[in-house]
């Protein structure tokens, strides 16, 4: 039996590409990267932060509340990382608990009811995965937040500021337009997590980052991000006012476009946008017609394959079986 070597990494991710992707990841995670609460006073007037999910507790990893954008009322919701060790512990390093997503839902429902646009800021490594989060329904909280966003009747502008980490980002990231700062990243799983599963080593994180094409420009090319917002030459952390001004212009431009749509059209456009995401190929269906063999035989025939294998009861022999 041959041992498959996984240390060498993929032929198509060069060291240069891996390092370039990794530099972006590190800029996105820079300790002085602008955070939601540092951007808010630059972008909005009269922000009032609201707290709590009305069920369990207030999650400091998600902040939000109404504010004025050039005199217009909007609902602001964002992940919030800390700026030093102490504040990071308080903010749980920006990784929300279920109650954070439920607070976000409460604010979105309010915005929907009173008819004001929602602006969200994404900056999280991901939803918190610990036991407390599990028992309070982390998956359900993310799922119901996503569902709520798909049905909103008000414009939703999403700004990926730093890390767009998986379900924890998407839970407040279903928008009509998705903007991303130049050095922001967006991914289905952290590069470390991807590396641990597919490369069996967290050291492969830079390769995983490159393979997942997680930079803003690459996400723009995939159609996941609509607008890339330029940052100051050395990164957003070097010039907060300039970064904020660029973000503000991009949000205002988005709202001009979205204001043209009536609520039902907005929802229809959002549905069409989400519905179109994916690379699905349709094979000729002829092979499926004919007599009525079992499902497996029919599918196997379609692809000219032998009959199926048994189902693994263990995952120890397959790299594929842990998703994100």
């Amino acid at each position, binding site marked *: 039996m041959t041992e498959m070597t996984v240390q060498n990494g993929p032929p198509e991710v060069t060291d240069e590409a891996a390092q370039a992707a990794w530099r972006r990841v590190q800029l996105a995670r820079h300790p002085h990267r602008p955070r939601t609460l540092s951007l808010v006073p630059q972008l909005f007037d009269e922000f009032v932060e609201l707290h709590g999910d009305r069920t369990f507790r207030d999650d400091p990893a998600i902040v939000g509340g109404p504010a004025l954008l050039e005199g217009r009322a909007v609902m602001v919701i964002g992940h919030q990382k800390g700026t030093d060790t102490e504040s990071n512990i308080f903010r749980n390093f920006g990784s929300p608990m279920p109650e954070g997503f439920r607070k976000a839902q409460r604010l979105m429902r309010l915005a929907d009811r009173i008819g004001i646009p929602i602006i969200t800021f994404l900056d999280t490594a991901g939803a918190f*995965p610990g036991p407390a989060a599990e028992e309070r329904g982390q998956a359900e909280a993310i*799922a119901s937040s996503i569902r709520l966003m798909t049905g909103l009747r008000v414009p939703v502008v999403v700004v990926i500021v730093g890390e767009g980490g998986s379900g924890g980002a998407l839970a407040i990231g279903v928008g009509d337009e998705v903007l991303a700062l130049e050095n922001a990243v967006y991914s289905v799983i952290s590069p470390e*997590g991807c590396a641990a599963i597919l490369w*069996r080593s967290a050291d492969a994180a830079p390769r995983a980052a490159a393979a997942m094409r997680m930079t803003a420009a690459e*996400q723009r090319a995939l159609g996941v991000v609509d607008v890339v917002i330029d940052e100051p030459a050395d990164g957003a952390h070097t010039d907060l006012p300039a970064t904020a001004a660029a973000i503000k212009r991009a949000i205002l431009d988005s709202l001009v476009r979205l204001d043209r749509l009536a609520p039902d059209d907005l929802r229809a456009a959002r549905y069409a946008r989400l519905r179109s995401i994916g*690379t699905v190929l349709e094979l000729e269906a002829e092979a499926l017609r004919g007599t009525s063999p079992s499902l*497996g035989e029919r599918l196997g025939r379609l692809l000219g394959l032998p009959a*199926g294998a048994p189902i693994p009861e263990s995952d120890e022999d397959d790299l594929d079986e842990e*998703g994100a």
Partner: protein
Amino acid sequence: MPPCSRGDWRIGDAVKIKFPFSRRSGPTDAWTKCPVCENQLFNRQLERSHRVCPTCGHHFRMSAGERIDLLLDSGTFEERDANLVSGDPLGFVDSKPYPERLESSRVRSGLPEAAVWGIGKVEGQRIAIGLFDFRFMGGSMGSVVGEKVARCFEAALAERIPAVIVSASGGARMQEGTISLLQLAKTTAALERLNEAGIPFISILTDPTTGGVLASFASLGDVVLSEPRALVGFAGARVASGTVGEELPDGFQSAERLLEHGFVDVIVPRSQLRATLARLVRVLPVAGQSDGTDRRAIRPIGILQGLAQRVGGAVSETAGIDTETTQARPSGGGR
């Protein structure tokens, strides 16, 4: 590489995937060892018992095809969109290119993708049903799986029939990156429309259902059923231990825990899954179709008969799920 040549991968002790059961014996054996009670089971006996260990009640995993046989009236399943296959949006390569990984999964499972969907009947009632197959890249959700789930919901909406998804998935498929992530939103958007139209969605969780599938439609059933002792949780074990720096306690991500915390409605042993599904479809009509018993044809004698039946104690027949039978405690052999 021939099909079933599993075992090319040797996993270092440093990174060990934590799933509750050890591997069963090879595919060509006539016998299978139960990973829980360690009894040797004759394969044909295992098939007859719908892959439930007759000794300890351990539920082995099932293929999508076996699930169809289990849940639907014989010969009623009409598969839709069997011809969808995935592209490679990222040109993803880890130890091998994604298209090769897809191909070996096709060979191994005999399926073109990790989910199938179609229209079928359960005790005579038409439903739209989607089923995951864990053999295909761990049931992971990429473009095609997301598309099939969305089309299943859209068909349920168009026909105004209930939707059912049987999940078995590690989560979003990493090889399609954020395209996979956005399948959470795509499937859930289609579900939102179903919800608004008043069409019930029944989510059935089986071992294992984790990650992005649980963090989207699978958690959002109007009714959420699970098989006993299924692994059900948000974060994969390695993601959790890597982030939190602690292992999740044993059995923490289980259907039983979710029931306890209010995220699962009923834990249903496989032998009763079909009857329970049929009953739910009867008692949860599509909005505007609640006259299942045809109230327009009320006749006095009918009412009297009905009363007599109630007095006779036959109410439980139609009064919903009989929790005593469907929520039976595991009958020993626990892990």
